[in-house]
């Protein structure tokens, strides 16, 4: 059959079909191709991921380089920090702004409004004179509520009340404790220490590895899981890993994955 008669035959065929059927035919043809391409790429990706990398950290380092372990300016811009202190002059507000962190300050906060603080990544919190309902130790109530959330913000306790045994929990629940007045370098060092493992791609990858290390599974299952997790990270969660083998820590892994999806865009 020559080309002209081939087109003629095709035309006759399509003419004999309804418009909807035509559309379906075209879509299924294109869709089939796309699915095939996606399957092939996923297969290739899986081969590369599982074969090449022994850990999530190795993969992250290969993808993001050393830069992936740094709190870059773009990343800092997306980190939400709040200062909660009746005397904001005790905290290096201008310095934290100069580092381009997304900073909000509160000189007091009512118990009814504590949920406002849930959206922050880091809360720098004083204990005294910050909650009108409990001027003496209101900060303790704030930290208790924040730390009971499924994904609590990091809290840096800033207070000189370390002498008071009745508020020991305020300091124990905090991720870091700093003296007042807070020095620029000390707050920056505390932020670096806390944030690197929870916001940078390399740090988060290491956190995932460390968490998996605490959970005993067979070497083979671990390899498979590594491959699946890398796939999830590569696709921003479009391909989700199987958590069957690691159910008890799945929530914590998932939390780290979500953080990764959110912050890794700052490194593109």
């Amino acid at each position, binding site marked *: 059959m020559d080309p002209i008669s081939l087109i003629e035959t095709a035309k006759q065929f399509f003419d004999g079909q309804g418009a909807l059927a035509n559309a379906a035919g075209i879509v299924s043809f294109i869709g089939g191709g796309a699915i095939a391409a996606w399957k092939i790429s996923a297969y290739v990706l899986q081969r590369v991921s599982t074969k090449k990398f022994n850990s999530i950290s190795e993969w992250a380092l290969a993808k993001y380089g050393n830069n992936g372990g740094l709190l870059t300016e773009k990343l800092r811009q997306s980190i939400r920090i709040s200062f909660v202190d009746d005397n904001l002059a005790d905290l290096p507000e201008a310095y934290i702004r100069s580092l381009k962190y997304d900073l909000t300050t509160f000189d007091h906060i009512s118990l009814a409004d504590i949920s406002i603080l849930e959206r922050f990544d880091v809360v720098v919190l004083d204990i*005294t004179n910050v909650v009108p309902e409990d001027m003496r130790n209101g900060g303790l109530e704030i930290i208790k509520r924040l730390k009971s959330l499924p994904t609590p913000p990091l809290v840096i306790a800033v207070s000189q009340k370390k*002498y008071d*045994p*009745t508020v*020991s929990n305020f300091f124990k629940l905090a991720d870091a404790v*700093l003296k007042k007045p807070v020095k620029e370098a000390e707050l920056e060092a505390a932020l670096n220490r806390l944030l690197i493992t929870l916001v940078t791609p390399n740090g988060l990858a290491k956190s995932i590895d460390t968490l998996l290390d605490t959970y005993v599974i067979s070497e083979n299952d671990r390899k498979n899981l590594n491959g699946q997790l890398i796939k999830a990270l590569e696709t921003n969660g479009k391909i989700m890993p199987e958590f069957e083998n690691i159910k008890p820590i799945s929530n914590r892994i998932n939390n780290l994955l979500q953080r990764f999806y959110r912050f890794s865009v700052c490194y593109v």
Partner: protein
Amino acid sequence: MNLIDAFESGAIAIPWAVSIDGKYFPSSTGRDAPMHCITDCNDKYCQNPGGTLLGHQCTVGFTYYHGKVGEAIIILFGTLGSKGWESVDTGIRQKNKDDLKGRSVSARDFSSWLEKLKSLNKLFVDYKNNILSEALHPLHETPKIAEEIRNLADSLVNLKPGKTFDERFSAALPAERGIYKGAQLLVDSFDMLSIFFNPESAKLGEKRIAEPYKLIHKLVLLLSNSNNGLTRRRPKIYGESYKKYLALESFRIIPLALLNNAIKYSMTEEVIIDVRDVDNGTLFSLVSTGPYISEEECGRIFERGFRGKYAQSIDRDGMGIGLYVAREAAIANRTTIKVVSEDLGYSLKSIPMARNTFSFVVRDVV
């Protein structure tokens, strides 16, 4: 108010005669422990450490229990335990028949009494802490002000010419040096008081790099600075150390408190500090000549509020804070302070003299 005070008041019922921190209490109904335990027994095996809540038998077959409420050790001894009469030596059994009435105490009986005591003790502790919290609340801004003055004094000294802190400190005016020293000691005092009132606080704060040799050098420089121009007793530093460690903020308190203690109680001019790197860390030793510390006292001088036999006559104002705080800071920084007192065989102002060495090994806190 503590447990012993409560028992002494007679208001709290004691079901069986017991000993609390070595002090004997008969039961509330007036019954004593078996006569054998009180007068005849020589080995007092039941009073040795190592007893448990489960109960153990002594040499004559009585059962004794140990329990802890807060810091107090409670020992219930001379009971029949779960095995009853059978396990007790026949002669002793006959002799103490009457005393043993009502002393069939099982581990469960003892534990349930202990739980009640713990609840009571918690009430005492909470009450004391609440009073403390209220009383100290007006002072919560004061440590911050001290910190601010110290930071300003630090800037003053740093404006002076010199490459090292030593050089800049020496170049400062006597008044500036005085302000720096005063402000630093004020900050240190608040840190020590924080640990004294709330020992848990020694564990708080960020971990930092500590260089033992530099820290000791700075402390000596500061403590030997005198505002009136007279030379104070200046400790001599020996040894070599180049190691660095990750330590808590409270680490500084350990050598500071020990040094203050040595300077305060040294009866001669010489206070020697030796800092040297050893296999597993850096060994800090402080040697001075002062009142002899008996073996019993060596175990107790680190207790809160405890003062040695001769401490009172040398320093009336001491309150037994320094060494207690040093021990808490040492525990937080994962080390132990050792003390050795070697009798020198002579007395000064009727106080027997000894070569006293306080030492600890610096290690990483993680």
